[in-house]
């Protein structure tokens, strides 16, 4: 390691190369704090040339690396690697260009998700992917993990909003993928790169697709006597042929916690709350709203509220997006999963999660993207209690297996990372995983780029109880 570090010191001044315990400590975990690993060093490149030089060094000495933005990964995706370095991309935070006529923005990987939309709002445009951590998470991380948000059914995930990439492969070779168009000539290599969890190198420049801000929104809150009734209401809306921008469900625990935290005006006596939002041209939204109201009237809603103005709408979303950290405050620790089930199996899945929770003697809160069957069971536990973390992990595993049994996926938007890689053989066959490995080795023969993530093989580091992430304690991020 010493010759490698000596060369690294030639590349970086000491204020951008951390090797001492004190400065390495903030990097030992990401949003999934139960895993911790100290890196050998953290470097903070200022430009693409420094990144490429760093990758060439890592390649030469076979030193593994992980690229990291704000470290909000919920799957341990940006966890450091044993005997490896962290390449922090926060200083590459420039929006390089904005092209309103072509509805694109070219950005560096360290740009914060929400900053893209604020930079283009003057042109009437926005960047659609809206993970709950959007005020701190970076585009590079969104790209690596194909982040989602509340609007995926209609608008897709990060992958659907990336047109072109300039990438440094793990050996330092620079390649250009995609172009300025929505379309491609030849295979969609951008599509393959997005969501590859950092296993294919580092994106240096990212051409994002922007959308015009919808002219009009209609946001409806409907409360129900049970989670199941709310789930059935989603089915009724879907069957009516309307395509809402978002459909979200919160359970009683989440509603109460969100109310206590931000006073969103949710009905407090409800067992479940359904939020539905329509967006688009004003005339189209009004016509859809009439059809949606008819559909909702057929469900067993206890109460229906409609946001009267944009302020009320934003408050509804504030409550929704803060729900997780709000519930988290009710408990010393929590774990969150993001498995997906077919929408028609939502009721069955929720009932079984509740049963499994009781069996494990753990509380589980539910806030989820109902439109696309993306669950977010929040398992509450006290890490100081002996065996509680293991019980919570065990329950989380059972929930993932339940999602697979019902025909779904182990992850909708958080990615596999370290956390779920042992479940990959339950979702994919040996043949499928072998193909993933061949592709990985063709791009990164030394397997240095984010080694130990997504693909099963190397053991994950041991679990440890470490409490919430500092950013989470500060209320800056939430786990969804």
């Amino acid at each position, binding site marked *: 390691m010493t010759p490698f570090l000596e060369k690294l010191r030639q590349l970086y001044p000491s204020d951008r190369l951390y090797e001492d315990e004190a400065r390495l400590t903030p990097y030992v975990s990401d949003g999934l704090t139960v895993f911790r690993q100290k890196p050998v060093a953290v470097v903070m490149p200022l430009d693409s040339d420094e990144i490429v030089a760093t990758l060439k060094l890592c390649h030469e000495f076979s030193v593994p690396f992980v690229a990291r933005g704000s470290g909000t990964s919920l799957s341990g995706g940006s966890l450091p690697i044993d005997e490896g370095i962290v390449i922090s991309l926060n200083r590459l935070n420039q929006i390089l260009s904005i092209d309103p006529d072509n509805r694109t923005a070219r950005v560096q990987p360290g740009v914060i998700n929400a900053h893209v939309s604020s930079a283009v709002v003057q042109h009437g445009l926005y960047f659609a992917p809206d993970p709950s951590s959007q005020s701190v998470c970076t585009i590079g991380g969104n790209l690596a993990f194909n982040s989602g948000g509340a609007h995926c059914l209609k608008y897709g995930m990060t992958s659907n909003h990336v047109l072109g990439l300039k990438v440094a492969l793990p050996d330092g070779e620079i390649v250009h993928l995609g172009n300025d168009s929505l379309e*491609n000539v030849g295979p969609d290599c951008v599509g393959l790169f997005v969501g590859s969890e950092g296993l294919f190198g580092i994106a240096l420049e990212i051409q994002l697709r922007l959308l015009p801000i919808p002219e009009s929104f209609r946001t409806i809150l409907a409360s129900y006597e049970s989670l199941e009734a709310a789930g059935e209401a989603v089915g009724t809306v879907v069957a009516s042929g309307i395509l809402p921008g978002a459909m979200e469900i919160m359970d009683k625990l989440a509603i109460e916690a969100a109310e206590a935290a931000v006073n969103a005006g949710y009905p407090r006596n409800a067992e479940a709350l359904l939020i539905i939002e329509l967006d688009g041209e004003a005339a189209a939204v009004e016509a859809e709203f009439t059809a949606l109201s008819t559909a909702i009237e057929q469900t067993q809603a206890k109460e229906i509220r409609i946001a009267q103005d944009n302020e009320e709408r934003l408050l509804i979303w504030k409550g929704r997006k803060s729900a997780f950290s709000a519930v988290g405050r009710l408990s010393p620790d929590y774990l969150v999963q993001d498995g997906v089930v077919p929408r028609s199996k939502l009721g069955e899945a929720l009932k079984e999660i509740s049963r499994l929770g009781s069996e494990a003697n753990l509380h589980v809160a539910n806030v989820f993207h109902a439109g696309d*069957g993306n669950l977010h069971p929040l398992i509450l536990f006290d890490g100081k209690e002996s065996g509680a973390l293991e019980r919570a992990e065990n329950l989380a595993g059972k929930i993932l297996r339940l999602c697979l049994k019902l025909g779904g996926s182990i992850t909708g938007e958080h990615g596999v990372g370290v956390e779920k890689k042992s479940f990959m053989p339950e979702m994919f066959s040996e043949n499928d995983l072998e193909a993933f490995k061949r592709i990985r080795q063709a791009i990164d023969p030394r397997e240095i780029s984010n080694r130990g993530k997504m693909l099963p093989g190397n053991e994950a580091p041991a679990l440890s109880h470490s409490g919430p992430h500092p950013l989470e304690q500060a209320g800056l991020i939430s786990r969804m």
Partner: protein
Amino acid sequence: MGNDFKLHVPDTISVLKSLVRDSPSVSIKARDDSPSPPNTTAITLAAFQKIVEYQPEEYTITVEAGAKVSDVISILAEQGQYFPFDPLFIDKDSTIGGIIANGYSGPGANRYGILRDFIIGLSFIDGQGNHIKTGGKVVKNAAGFDIPKLMVGSRGSLGIITESTFKVFPLPQAYKTILFRFDSFEKGHTALLALGRSQFTLDALDLDSKGTLIIRLSGQAASIDTRIQALETMLGSTHDPLSRDKPFWQVPLNLQSYPKTGLLLKIPNSPTAIAEIDAKLAPNCPHRRYSIGGFVSWIYSESEVNDLSQSLKELDLSAQIASGDTLEQVIGTDHPKAFYNRIKQALDPQQKFIALYPKTPSST
């Protein structure tokens, strides 16, 4: 192809796997009239036409790659659903595997995205005869490499697609297609750019080489006339309705079936680049259509492939040959293929499938 030409019709995955394992070179014969490289084992997936799974309430459908696109569209329509990427060239031979391998999305993709935005699962046979399943069957999934997207536009060069799952959407209650005629191409192009940035959520937004905008709206029937009035106010001109029996993508370039002669090119580009493309290609290309909000150009020409390729190089653009009597797949600017070549090496190490970029030496 000589007299000894034989078209293989495997009826199980294991026969298909053996064909790939035992042949030095394999190609999928999609249409009777498509040219086939010499000395290859030609295969049709005519025996793979099943609808594997379709639950309308899930907004997903899983079909075998040999299924006819027109059949799948009918099955979806019976349940009030559709492919929002608006597949093209849906003649009697068009298959699901074919539209994925070619990446054909139509004007209607303007609203919600192209084919790659709606493919969520895919199974394929790689160059070593392994049957590989990737992606999933739920609308949201982030597990594993996104090989379903990689296969879009791969033209059979990375594997034989056997089955695919798509996200589908509810069919809008009503459609209306209208034209806005401008007195110059430039004015039409300016209007296209303005509409692209506007809050109008247009199903289709195309421009022809005469400066006519071809617009399709969809949604609740009650709202469409009001929305058209708003469009007229913005554009400062009145629309011409397009009659129902003349589907709008036949004007002026027919994108529903392949032309019998000549070359049809698909060029991905940025909407602002259209002005330069039109000026450059007009002399040699009689039919030009700018589609999907101006992000794709469809160009018909009777010129030589090499001449067109040269013109595209001067524009720094590449094109996919959609149809024409040539074995060339991609022409124009020859971008480095280092990433693609590494993937090709991983999935087809013995180069059994077609070479997408025959003139590019491997960089690895």
